[in-house]
């Protein structure tokens, strides 16, 4: 527990509780946080921060962005713990994953509205790379995660709307099914399928433009 929390707890006149056992279930820890145990929240944070960073890392490539999303998600989790229904509806990990995916979606929408993020053109290297990939027969064994691949993907995805980007990333990077995406986003399965169809078409258009 950090110093600020200790001081805040003491000021609020709350008794200092013993630290929660690390083998406690998520639901038990949520109950403890709701009862005022801040150390239980730290334990939840330590337990799930990697998972949330992993999700954010599929949408954002910069370290600070991932850190920001993880922070924002945990802050939302903290203030919404009262709404968490426990094992009856979904597990804690599914619940926080949904919050993180929504935080990523919000950030993509904000980024789209920002005037300082214009859609830039591809460099000659990127175009040549793309051209060679498109004319190569068969799938690549494993594309290397180079700066060129990242920049190229970022530029291509910047041409898509946030919803299209979400669906394509969840389908291709997270390997989720349409039903799983629907559950995560709170959409219908039909909407996910239609969105995926449109997103693929939009990406094809963006790729064709550079051929």
């Amino acid at each position, binding site marked *: 527990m950090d110093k*600020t929390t200790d001081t805040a707890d003491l000021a609020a006149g709350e008794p200092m509780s013993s630290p929660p056992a690390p083998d406690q279930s998520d639901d038990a820890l949520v109950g403890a946080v709701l009862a005022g145990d801040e150390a239980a929240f730290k334990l939840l944070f330590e337990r799930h921060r990697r998972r949330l960073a992993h999700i954010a*890392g599929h949408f954002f490539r910069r370290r600070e962005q991932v850190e920001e999303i993880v922070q924002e998600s945990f802050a939302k989790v903290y203030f919404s713990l009262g709404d968490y229904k426990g094992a009856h509806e979904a597990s804690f990990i599914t619940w926080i994953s949904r919050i993180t995916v929504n935080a990523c979606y919000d950030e993509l929408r904000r980024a789209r509205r920002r005037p300082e993020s214009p859609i830039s053109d591809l460099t000659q290297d990127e175009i040549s790379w793309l051209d060679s990939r498109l004319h190569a027969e068969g*799938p690549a064994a494993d594309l290397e995660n180079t700066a060129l*691949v990242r920049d*190229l993907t970022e530029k291509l995805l910047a041409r898509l709307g946030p919803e299209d980007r979400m669906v394509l990333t969840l389908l291709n990077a997270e390997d989720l099914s349409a039903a799983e995406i629907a559950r995560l986003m709170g959409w219908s399965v039909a909407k996910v399928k239609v969105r995926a169809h449109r997103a693929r078409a939009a990406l094809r258009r963006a790729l*064709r433009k550079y051929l």
Partner: protein
Amino acid sequence: MLRKDRRKLDQQLDRLSRSLVPDERLDRVGRELIRASRMSDQEAEAAVSSPFLYPRLRARIAAERELQSRTSDIWLALLRTARRPLTGMVLTTIVAALLLWSASTNGIAANNDDDAFIARETSLDRIVFTNGSSPTSDDVLGALLDQTDSDAPKR
């Protein structure tokens, strides 16, 4: 001239070759790019390995909590300030409603009185008030003639 045509033809061929790339191949490259550009597990872990991340999160939560309590304080203060005028307005509304109600009930009684009064009035008044509709020019003329007739023996 020939060179110009050649260039145009090349451009057309180029455009044609672009459109001939099958959708499946474009989808495949798109998929590969998205998959390859995601952050690796190690990178993602490194992004949240800072020892300052949790204190920053606590500070953020504290700031948000303060903001929320300040917002609720503002609402409470507004309610407290508006309490007196609101009470006055509610009382005024009740009094006005009561007055309106009493006026309407008196109005019904007054209407009954009017009928009795009208019964004692001249024929012109009777025409105007009892019918409830505006009198025609014939009615007015008739009433005037009646009045003239009734006034005539007095003279």
